[in-house]
């Protein structure tokens, strides 16, 4: 670390933090596998530096699913290489606002809300009414 950047670099190497986080995740994952109990670990309150974050994500890796949500700003969701362990990262004004490890079948933020669905159903019905032709099989031209 050069002297010049030291003043702005917030990380004080703390090898224990990432290890502790991973152990905690493992414990919660085991619990989820056995009982189905879901949990969320909020990384926000922890003294995480970018290096910590990188080390953690390095370890967790990338799995099959990744999604991007566009709601009041961006949100990134991806499954880690460990099935059932998700990373949910909400962005605020350009920076990470909330950073979570979610242990669940599927992160809540990905799922549609039934109340939204009810409204959507109404909207879809209205749309259909406005354009009944859409349901007819289009002719090959």
């Amino acid at each position, binding site marked *: 670390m050069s002297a010049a950047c030291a003043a702005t670099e917030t990380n004080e190497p703390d090898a224990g933090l990432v290890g502790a986080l991973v152990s905690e995740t493992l414990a919660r994952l085991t619990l989820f596998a056995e009982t189905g109990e879901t949990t969320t670990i909020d990384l926000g309150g922890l003294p995480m530096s970018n290096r910590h974050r990188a080390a953690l994500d390095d370890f967790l890796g990338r799995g099959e699913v990744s999604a991007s*949500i566009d709601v009041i*700003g961006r949100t990134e969701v991806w499954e880690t290489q460990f099935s059932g362990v998700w990373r*949910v990262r909400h962005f605020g*004004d350009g920076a*990470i606002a909330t950073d979570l490890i979610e242990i669940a079948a599927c992160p809540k*933020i990905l799922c549609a*809300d039934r109340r939204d669905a009810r409204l959507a159903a109404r909207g879809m019905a209205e749309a259909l009414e406005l354009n009944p032709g859409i349901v007819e099989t289009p002719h090959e031209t």
Partner: protein
Amino acid sequence: MKPDDTLAGEMQRRGVSRRAFLKYGSYIASLMALPPSAVEALAEGLAAARRQSVIWLSFQECTGCTESLTRSYSPTLENLIFDFISLDYHETLMAVSGEAAEEARRAAMAANKGKYIVVVDGSVPMKDGGVYATIGGKTNHQILEDTVKDAFAVVAVGTCAAFGGLPKANPNPTGAVAISTLVAGKPMINISGCPPIPEAMTGALAYILSFGKLPELDHLSRPKAFFGETIHDRCYRRPYYERGEFANAFDDAGARQGHCLFKVGCKGPVTYNSCATTKWNGGVSFPIQSGHGCLGCSEPEFWDQGGFYRPLSTPLGAMGPALAGAALAGAALGVGAALSARSHQKHYLASLDKEKEKE
């Protein structure tokens, strides 16, 4: 069918799903260190809430608090709060002025009697009948009393409103006082800081909106979620403090290596705020990270702690004359005591001589 006037309804009309509330709930829960189980409660509470009428009063202040809160200009997570509240009166932000503005305030108060929140920034001058700050011919004190009367809660934003701040600093020419000294019998929150961390303001408001009650407060009525720990306790430079590695000046090797700033006057150990964790400007940095000690701006009387660069463990005020005077007085008393003792002894020796004469 009556339009859905809940916040969820408003958002839906703008084509935003309930995911927004879930995301916002996560954000607030994370900010306030609430348990993950609170996320849904927050989201549901907010979704079901109605737009909150807020009347913002500015007294002896610098508008820095407003700047802090409205800092970002793109509609993002951080300022979503403006979609949840109805800022019915705010001199700096509102378009109207003059009597029309005052009329807006009165209208909002009448429409939301007992339900509106009064946010105050700035302290209130009380000296000389409060003439040092008047709006529309009414003193700050009158306006405050008038507005708060039918409010649901009062939020004092910034150190001036919370504790008196700069206007109250020695010699306090206007007789400035904190809002809490003038507001009795209303739920009251202080969000101190100069300026306060915007997240602390929005977090507190969102909490009230979601749960209909005040968050847990400390003995200075500050939300514990943001003011529960000292800067020092959460400071990334803390390990340097523990190891005894300090910057002795702002330009020495210690300062360059990012050592603890205690010796150059950092007030982190006695300052309760979340700068070290929430940080500023969207989590970019905070004063200590930028190489300057904490000023203690979220604490009462922070201007009058003997100087920002005076280390916390040093005495306030000049010792020299007091100690010199004490040494002189001590010497005088010592000589006096010795003379008195000697006179006791002389007295005895004289009596011995008399005995000898008798013999």
